[in-house]
């Protein structure tokens, strides 16, 4: 029996140590699966763990679509909730707060000047990081959800330059299509890639009040202004702008097609930059331009479409103090410099000046700072079923399956059948 005492004591101490170690584990779920940003995130986490030996960060990672469809909801409903979860600003944050999943960060933000370390713009009413004036989302990135990426070599081959007006843009597409090129590759089998862009186009054409009212189901979509917006997509279809397999292609294969020079332009968000190293050949030269102004008199003629993505601490987090400690580290200037250098646009003040940003990130930051407004993507701002229905109507128009008018009639009928969301 004496002989057993020592091993038992050692085992007891080991179990105690393990328990203590587990108690300091911060569960962090997100959808950053790869690319330069994941490398940067892993490096920041390694730095944090080295600086805080008692805390480990357990990353629970899902593919983007899986995360937003099933991954997050399953975890939020489970008995072992994540301490920190990735979220999009706007409607999703509001939903999380109403459902009781989000931790009120007012107190935490008030200490160490944390809140002031971010750009003022992320705490405005329209930014979607706060609910009832209380901060719930720790901003991590500013995302342009749509800009038009183009292949510089092919543009030069045809003596093309980024268009200044919509008409120039259509003419440019026509030139490329007639030369046998695929002007635009869009991977729209889930509707949101083109849908986001169509949302921006509509926001640049439709009076803001009418636009909001339609998405809130307080007014019909079938109006001359929305018809004009969708007709712009019909016009692009008619000059042969889009890839023929648009509705069968996924967002990622479409991006790969662009990098493999299978198309000249690719409308998608700022996250393309962090995928460049994985998908593009050495020396691939590309640039980007915003959707050209359509109606110069419109208040959002020079707007961009974008959102904030960030992190929420779960209201029932096992380790809220450690989670907040990690988030402060992650959004510290030093960490954010690494984050920005991976191709992300940091919401933290001063980072853009200190980080060695690549050409694309600098251009996007300039675009955002010169924009006359930031239009949120419809699926971040309004009920998802309404946004999805609008996206499908846009796809009908862009692929020539329905006229703009018929697509809008279909949209209103679909929303009527759906009822108020």
């Amino acid at each position: 029996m004496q002989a057993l005492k020592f091993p038992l004591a050692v085992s007891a101490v080991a179990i105690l140590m393990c328990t203590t170690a587990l108690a300091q584990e911060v569960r962090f779920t997100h959808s950053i699966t790869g690319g330069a940003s994941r490398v940067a995130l892993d490096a920041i986490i390694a730095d944090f763990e080295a600086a805080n030996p008692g805390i480990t960060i357990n990353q629970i990672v899902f593919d983007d679509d899986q995360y937003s469809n099933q991954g997050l909801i399953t975890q939020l409903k489970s008995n072992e909730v994540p301490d920190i979860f990735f979220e999009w600003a706007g409607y999703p944050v509001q939903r999380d707060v109403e459902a009781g999943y989000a931790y009120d960060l007012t107190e935490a933000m008030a200490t160490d000047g944390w809140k002031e370390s971010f750009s003022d713009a992320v705490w405005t009413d329209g930014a979607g990081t706060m609910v009832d004036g209380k901060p719930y989302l720790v901003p991590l990135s500013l995302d342009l959800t749509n800009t038009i990426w183009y292949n510089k070599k092919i543009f030069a081959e045809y003596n093309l330059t980024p268009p200044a007006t919509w008409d120039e843009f259509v003419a440019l597409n026509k030139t490329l299509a007639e030369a046998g090129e695929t002007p635009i590759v869009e991977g729209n089998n889930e509707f949101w890639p083109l849908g986001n862009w169509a949302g921006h186009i509509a926001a640049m054409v439709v009076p803001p009040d009418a636009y909001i009212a339609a998405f809130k189901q307080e007014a019909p979509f079938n109006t001359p202004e929305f018809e004009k917006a969708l007709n712009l997509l019909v016009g692009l279809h008619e000059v042969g702008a889009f890839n023929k397999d648009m509705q069968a292609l996924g967002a990622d294969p479409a991006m790969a097609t662009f990098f493999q020079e299978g198309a000249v332009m690719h409308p998608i968000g700022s996250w393309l930059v962090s995928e460049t190293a994985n998908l593009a050949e050495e020396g691939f030269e590309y640039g980007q331009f915003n959707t050209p102004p359509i109606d110069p008199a419109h208040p959002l003629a020079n707007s961009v479409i974008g959102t904030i993505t960030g992190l929420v601490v779960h209201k029932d987090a096992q380790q809220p103090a450690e989670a907040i400690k990690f988030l402060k580290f992650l959004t510290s200037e030093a960490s954010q410099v690494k984050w920005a250098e991976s191709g992300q646009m940091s919401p933290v003040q001063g980072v853009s000046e200190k980080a060695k940003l690549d050409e694309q990130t600098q251009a996007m930051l300039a675009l955002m700072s010169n924009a006359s407004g930031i239009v949120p993507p419809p699926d971040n701002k309004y009920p998802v079923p309404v946004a999805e229905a609008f996206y499908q109507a846009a796809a009908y128009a862009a692929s020539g399956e329905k006229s703009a008018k018929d697509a809008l009639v279909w949209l209103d009928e679909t929303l009527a059948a759906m009822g108020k969301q």
Partner: protein
Amino acid sequence: MLFAAPAMLLFATFVLLPLGASVYYAFTYWDGFSAPRWAGFANFARALTDPTFLMSFVHVVLYILATLVFEVSFGLFMAVLLNSDRRGFSLMRGMFFAPVVLSMSAAGVLWKFVLDYRTGLLNSTLRSVGLGDWAQPWLAQPETALLFICIVSGWKYAGFYMVIFFAALRRIPRNLYEAAKLDGANGTQQFFAITLPMLKQNVIVCILLAVTGGFAGFDLFFTMTNGQPFGATEVPATWIIKQAFDQNQIGYGVALTVVLTVVVSVISIAYLKISERGHVTRY
């Protein structure tokens, strides 16, 4: 009763309780995040006016009809054709059966590559033989997408039905064919007068499997088109998944599931009742 209790408890926990909960959630507005709110029959009323959901039944019926041709009929044809002990026939049966062991998702992904517009094997072959104009985005066109799913499904499952029919063919007494031959019946007459009547029960089972399996069809549709283009390949299961998870309308998604369950149950029961009449011996 005591001996049955563990089984009943398991059945209640894993079948009855989820079933009851599903029926309850079908009567609620529930996004999965917040607490469910009572909706009455609103979800069911919406289901009956949801054009995509209603069209998904049309698609699934077309798919089932196609499976009866590409899977059941072709499987029967191959079983009759390969019903021989001659050298090499067992290998051919094995090769024909091989796609059955592949997972449906893997088959979907594989064929998606084959049918890819830019780099797919089909279009590359057409281009290489000078038929580039025939190359089409097969899965992006409403006219062709469902057809190709049916063909892939046939490729995948015809071997399964072939094995069922082949096993049944082996049980048909040879002397029936010998007697038919003596009476001067040719191959076609033997098929319709002997083979088909003797396989009647197997045909009934195969049709039932094709019908119920067709309604439950999801993986091939999900991996190849996910309902696209524009709902042309939307079947109830893909639409339910989209409503419940992509659009966070779990209450509505569950209501659609209840409707689907009722439809499949009614069809299955009706089919079994009708088919029973054909072979019950009445005294």
